[in-house]
């Protein structure tokens, strides 16, 4: 596996909602090697505070060597990132982690909650590019409100996926949670890919287990290095601790400990 440390120029900056941004960076070497589900570690400032890089999923990869990140402002690192200007250079390390295992057969369902949508668009594009028939594939997206879903939901729909939405406030789609939508769809599916809040993923995993459908989950933990050196990013796996940055961030659900019961 190859990973690079690269200074990347900011070529696109879109504000999708109040606190949700999409940045596009020139990162040819990272783009050339990236797989859906992989992430980058971003240095948000040249200074020493914040000190650590911030992990972000690779949201999109373009043929010209650009990549996009999708993120929400939650603290000082993402705040600084949101204030970057076009032409600024950001120091990235990537692509990191293992990525999703693409399906042998279909149909599949992609389930994203909140910023968990980020890696799924790259996955959806990749599945689409492999020439696969996406007509029977589903994308379920959940967010607090409509603003956080557009234009992302339309981008999935444009690739031919059947998109269903759930919002906490009911401003678009189902009012409530994604797992509510899943019951109807799951019997048709061969595999589920999910990324989002832990509680949501836990519910998705439980449903998949009941329906005996394979499930891959992408996890978040606090990371210092992103490359397997600090051993800080552990979570409980079925057979002892696992390191999310190296063995993940994507795992087969059955290899992790879930507090399901």
């Amino acid at each position: 596996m190859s990973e690079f440390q690269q200074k990347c120029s900011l070529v696109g900056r879109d504000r999708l909602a109040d606190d949700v941004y999409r940045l596009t960076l020139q990162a040819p070497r990272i783009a050339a090697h990236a797989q859906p589900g992989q992430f980058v570690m971003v240095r948000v400032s040249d200074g020493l505070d914040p000190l650590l890089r911030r992990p972000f999923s690779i949201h999109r990869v373009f043929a010209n060597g650009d990549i996009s990140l999708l993120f929400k402002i939650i603290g000082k690192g993402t705040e600084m990132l949101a204030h970057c200007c076009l032409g600024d250079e950001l120091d990235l390390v990537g692509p990191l982690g293992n990525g999703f295992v693409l399906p042998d057969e279909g149909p599949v369902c992609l389930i994203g909650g909140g910023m968990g949508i980020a890696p799924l668009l790259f996955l959806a594009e990749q599945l689409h590019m492999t020439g696969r028939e996406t007509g029977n594939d589903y994308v379920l997206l959940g967010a607090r409100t409509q603003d956080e879903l557009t234009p992302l939901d339309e981008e999935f729909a444009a690739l031919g996926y059947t998109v269903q939405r759930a919002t906490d406030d009911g401003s678009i789609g189902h009012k409530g949670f994604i797992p509510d939508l899943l019951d109807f769809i799951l019997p048709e599916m061969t595999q589920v890919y999910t990324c989002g809040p832990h509680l949501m993923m836990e519910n998705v995993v439980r449903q998949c287990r009941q329906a005996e459908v394979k499930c891959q989950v992408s996890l978040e933990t606090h990371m210092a290095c992103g490359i397997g050196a600090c051993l800080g990013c552990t979570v409980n796996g079925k057979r002892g601790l696992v390191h999310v940055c190296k063995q993940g961030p994507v795992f087969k659900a059955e290899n992790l400990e879930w507090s399901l019961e």
Partner: protein
Amino acid sequence: MRESYGEGTGCPENCNAPDLRVQIGSLVLRNPVMTASGTFGYAREFENLVDLDQLGGIIVKGISLQPKPGNPPPRIVETSCGMLNAIGLENVGVDRFISGKMPYLRKLSTPVVVNILGDSVEEYSEIARKLDGVEGVAALEVNISCPNVKKGGVAFGTVPEMAARVTEAVRQASQLPLIVKLSPNVTDIVLMAKAVEGAGADAVSLINTLIGMAIDPVSRRPKLANVIGGLSGPAIKPVALRMVWQVAQAVSLPVIGIGGITTANDALEFFLAGATAVQVGTANFYDPSSTGNIVQGLKGYLQEQGEDRLVDIIGTLKIGTD
């Protein structure tokens, strides 16, 4: 702020570039910039990001007799200009280190120093014995200073007699150059340094992490599952520098400076304070290119200062008016 002796100021190998070589016991390093234990994995993790053959030395993750699973998550927290960790010395154990990690490490041209730790004096000497004679192991660094283990560890690093006993035991078990890594979590670090000097250490390295903690006011819970952890990064540099300066004046062993080093200027502060070499720790996480930049920056500094050899600036701190 940008490094003032940054990239590009170095001289190509064949011109009369400044001599960065330093010596730690019988071990000669091509340059004084090493990677600190626990922050560089077993080196391979960095192979795509760092030219491993350009480092002065590689200190691998602390190794114990038996494999250790480490502490439960969360294990790391960011703090102002630093981080807390409570990894708990997760490692593969000495046997799997020798069979699984050494074959890669011994192919490098850079000296590999193995950081060792134990729950008892006997464990330390047994690990040392197992590593003695293993091809590619250039030296041992004895960690008597990890704040994240419950048994023994703390006493070894805080009681001079205990530190001396561990040092003697390892000295007897191994022919390798012996570096003892000191804890800053003591009243008088000079006493510790003198104790291990008397017990046969070839060098001391300092500092390990400072014990700290962080609390989430919303949940009213500690941010680390282990409650307390070790503070590292730029935040600890002034403390490390002070301790290196005090110890360098008090012992005649080479002192290796560790703590918050990111740039050549950081490293220079340690050399002026009396360090013979430095280790870069947390900086590897947020800037894998820092070790390379430090080496280049040191060359640039020496050239600008009209110095031919790095060793000539060690301990040249000026105090007072003359």
